[in-house]
């Protein structure tokens, strides 16, 4: 009840907002993007299921680019720093982001990791996201490209089951092709699935173990830079 006239009413006022809930994340992502641009670092967000072969792909990349490019990585995971340790052993300057329970990396985590330590000069920063085909795709981290690692054992219809992830992919890397001899893998079925969820389907098939396809993958990476390196053959 108000003192003046004894009324007890409040007014209901509608307020138009139209604000994206990811707005704050995207502001930080834009800051990260500018950070990368100023330092001429190509940042790649590497996503995929747990066990899809993200770390192995990066290890193979380090072997291939040794001597011609400087690599750095952020390795995101719920627990342990094992991926970051593997990457460091492969010659990639790496830092771990242990998220605890969060199922994805967000721009703030990347921002913190970029600024909490001094980083050596790098041509590429690989952000190895948490193994998860659901949430990571919606969080802009400031990366230049989204790469989704999909292994030959995961099923050709995976893209149809996870359209949000695949629609954000700039490239799908089909991993573990050294296993094809023991699988009934239908590459036409995968191509069809990708065409239905990815407006510009692009796929490179690799085996981190044998090195098959790694040259094509590296050529794609180099195409993202304005001046390709003279890669040692």
């Amino acid at each position, binding site marked *: 009840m108000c003192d003046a006239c004894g009324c007890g009413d*409040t007014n209901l006022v509608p307020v138009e907002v139209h604000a994206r809930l990811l707005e704050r994340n995207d502001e930080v992502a834009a800051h990260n993007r500018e950070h990368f641009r100023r330092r001429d670092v190509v940042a790649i967000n590497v996503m995929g299921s747990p066990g899809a072969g993200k770390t192995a792909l990066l290890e193979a990349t380090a072997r291939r680019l040794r001597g011609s490019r400087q690599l750095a990585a952020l390795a995101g995971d*719920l627990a342990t720093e094992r991926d970051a340790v593997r990457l460091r052993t492969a010659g990639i300057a790496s830092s771990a982001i*242990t998220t*605890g329970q969060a199922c994805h990396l967000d721009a703030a985590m990347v921002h913190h990791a970029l600024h909490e330590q001094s980083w050596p000069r790098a041509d590429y920063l690989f952000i190895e996201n948490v193994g998860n085909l659901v949430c990571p795709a919606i969080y802009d981290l400031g990366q230049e490209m989204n790469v989704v690692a999909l292994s030959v054992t995961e099923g050709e219809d995976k893209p149809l089951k996870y359209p949000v992830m695949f629609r954000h992919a700039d490239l799908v890397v089909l991993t573990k092709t050294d296993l094809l001899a023991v699988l009934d893998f239908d590459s036409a079925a995968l191509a069809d699935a990708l065409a*239905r969820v990815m*407006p510009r389907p692009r796929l490179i098939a690799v085996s981190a173990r044998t090195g098959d396809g790694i040259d094509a993958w590296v050529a794609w990476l180099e195409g993202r830079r304005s001046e390709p390196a003279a890669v040692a053959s």
Partner: protein
Amino acid sequence: MIETTWEPPMHEYGLVQALLERVEREASAHEAAAVHRVIVRIGPLAGVDRELFADAYRMCRPGTRCEDAELLLETEEVDWRCRACNAAIPAGAALVCPTCGWPARLAGGDAIVLERIELEVRPHV
């Protein structure tokens, strides 16, 4: 190595936090006594589970200005369009324009938007 603060392993909780913070800012700006209703639009391709989002909202609103505020979840259609001629691409079809062959772009369907709020404002006498 950095560690983040604990939160339940679903990103819906983080999005609800962002929602509550934004509503708090708007409510303060309008000097609202309370928030009556919150209207959020979530599209099918947003990557957000509507049930989990609603659950997270119920769990996180106590102690905030949205404590008694109803959450209304709106949706929208997935709308793939030709990048060149804007023709609609049928649902489930390859994301390439049947007419001109250009790739599709997503014109709608991935929204995670706080559309409007209804505030309880005491009348000025």
